[in-house]
């Protein structure tokens, strides 16, 4: 029996995936604590518990990834989240050539070849616009949960125009739009449109190749995915597993290769 794991400590959540004989055995997602070490320990303990393991000692190889990857104490090595997202998406869906990862504090677009090797990537990490943080900020203004934001935007009839250059200014714009009497669904759809436009510019930089998949927590936002697919003029492939674990899954897949 071969047990390996990947642990992805991001800016907002920690994710861990355990593979048993090349199949997903368990996974866990938790909110980040202020300490990346603690986040890693907690999320891995949760994944191990779900797999019926007593701890990480039974894991033959562990790869860490994400922003906190250098701080994962039990990892045998760490690998960049770009490589891990590529490996995870390719493992789940070998036809994927373009991955959009919408993380908590950055977004990136990764281009893969038919072997799953990363051939290009581009990221936006100096501004929260186009990231999960942007959507979180908007939910606060609208007093909605992320799920509610997603669902309500699907009812829009005429999405509002919101700039995607700066989260802080966008918050002001949303308040102005609400004061002008715009319907909440239209504002919600406008928010998704702003994010989609931001992502579209990144996708064009690496080249839009089918199949295209979205990873990260924001991939669960159906309102955003719908608008993004319209902007891209291309269907977005639904990954057969939780899109939030793709980085950790890729790390586990790479760990499996290391463990032989």
């Amino acid at each position: 029996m071969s047990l390996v794991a990947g642990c992805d400590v991001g800016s907002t959540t920690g994710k861990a995936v355990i593979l048993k004989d090349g199949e997903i055995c368990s996974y866990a997602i938790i909110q980040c604590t202020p300490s990346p070490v603690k986040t890693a320990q907690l999320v891995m303990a949760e994944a191990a518990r779900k797999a019926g393991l007593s701890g990480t000692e039974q894991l033959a190889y562990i790869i860490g990834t994400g922003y906190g990857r250098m701080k994962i104490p039990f990892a045998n090595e760490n690998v960049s989240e770009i490589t891990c997202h590529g490996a995870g998406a390719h493992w789940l869906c070998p036809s994927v050539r373009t991955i959009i990862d919408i993380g908590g504090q950055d977004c990136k677009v990764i281009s893969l070849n038919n072997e799953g090797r990363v051939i290009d990537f581009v990221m936006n990490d100096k501004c929260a616009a186009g990231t999960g943080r942007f959507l979180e900020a908007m939910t606060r203004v609208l007093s909605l949960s992320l799920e509610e934001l997603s669902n309500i935007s699907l009812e829009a009839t005429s999405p509002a125009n919101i700039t995607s250059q700066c989260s802080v200014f966008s918050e002001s714009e949303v308040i102005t739009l609400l004061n002008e009497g715009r319907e909440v669904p239209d504002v919600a759809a406008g928010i998704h449109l702003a994010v989609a436009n931001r992502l579209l510019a990144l996708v064009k930089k690496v080249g839009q190749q089918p199949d295209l998949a979205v990873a990260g927590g924001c991939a669960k936002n159906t309102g955003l995915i719908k608008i993004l697919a319209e902007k891209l003029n291309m269907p977005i492939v639904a990954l057969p597993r939780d899109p939030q674990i793709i980085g950790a899954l890729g790390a586990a897949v790479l760990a499996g290769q290391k463990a032989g």
Partner: protein
Amino acid sequence: MVEIKPFNPEQTQKLVETLALAPMLGEIVPSERSMGVVATALADYYRSILSAVENGKPIVLQQLCVGPELFYAFDVQPVNPEAWAAVPLLTNPEMAVPYLEIAENAGVAADLCSVNRTMIGELIGGSIPRPDFITWASQPCDSIKVGYYIAKYLTGVPMFFIDSPQWDTPECLDYYAHQVRQLIVFLEEQTGRKLDWDRLKEVVEESNRAVEYIIELNELRKLVPCPSDSRVPTYLFITFMTMLGLPGATAMYKAFRDEAKERAQKKEGVVPEEKIRGIWFSIMVPWDLFWQNWLQEELGHVNVMDMFGYLTALPIDTSTPDKLIRGLAERWHMAVPMGRQARGIVDSYFNDFLYVYEEWKGDCLILAGNSGCRWLKGAYGMLREICREREIPALQFDIDIFDPRFVSAQAYRGQVEDFLTTVVMPAKAAKKR
């Protein structure tokens, strides 16, 4: 009207003291030998400026696309503000920050390139000598045009402007040469002296010797493994626009050439195992230039050629004054990096990159997109497409050339490291299979 403080030499004196230590560092740490050589030359340059201020020698604020040769022939001290600000960044990454703030507080737009904002802040703050006159050209960018005009407005000194034509046709070069003649008239008026043609010939012949060394050095950089340090192209550029025509500059280029030649003869590279030959065909990050050491040592990445090291200058025929003037016009118009690429149609930039990529056997393109550089950033999308068609791995990231607060070192370094390890190394390995 904004008040300009009198020049305070203290900061420059400290810089000279710091630069004077670099050769000792070079003796202890072999990888710093190049820095030691360039630091000696730069220390001399700064000393000569301090001495010019002290002795009342005329000082010209000289923009990068107006070469220094004529000024040395006139015994006028050129101060190149781009280099003036860039060199201290090698020792203190945040050196430009207070001057950027001075300029912005004086009303200069924050989206003007930080190179020009720093110059304006330094003029106002008194950390650059107040010039007696200003010379500048319309190459390479709009920020330059605005920045130098603000410098004229602030100082109120006479200004000579070279209108750079868009093309390289004989007619364009005639037009440029005509302006070089007018510049001579301007300098004669400002200094009250006639040009000594024999002295100009002497300076240009010295610059020709320097150019010969640069050509040889850049040829050696084509070797695999590359025998010359990643930072040398930046040093070449800084000194080319400030010191060309001085024996100190020639000695420095010779030292770079000798160092590379010595390694090449032993079939050695600048790093024991060269893994990636990078082409940084936009800016290097001057406030983080020493990170190139880490890239060399840890990842085996060598910047084999970049846009600023790609100096296409040729020796100038000094046999007649006409040929000499024509040669200077060609050199300033066609051979100054960035100026060369940023005029006319953008194809010149793409063609230069593709030529450099092939000739210097590059593995990838790295584009550090300066926030104030509209023309370069506008061209990046097309250049990426060109690279994609040719399967050339390419990375573009945002940065500010003088302001480390815009994107942190940590943020951009992570992208470069990820690119080299995640995209370039596997691509090279796949090619070998």
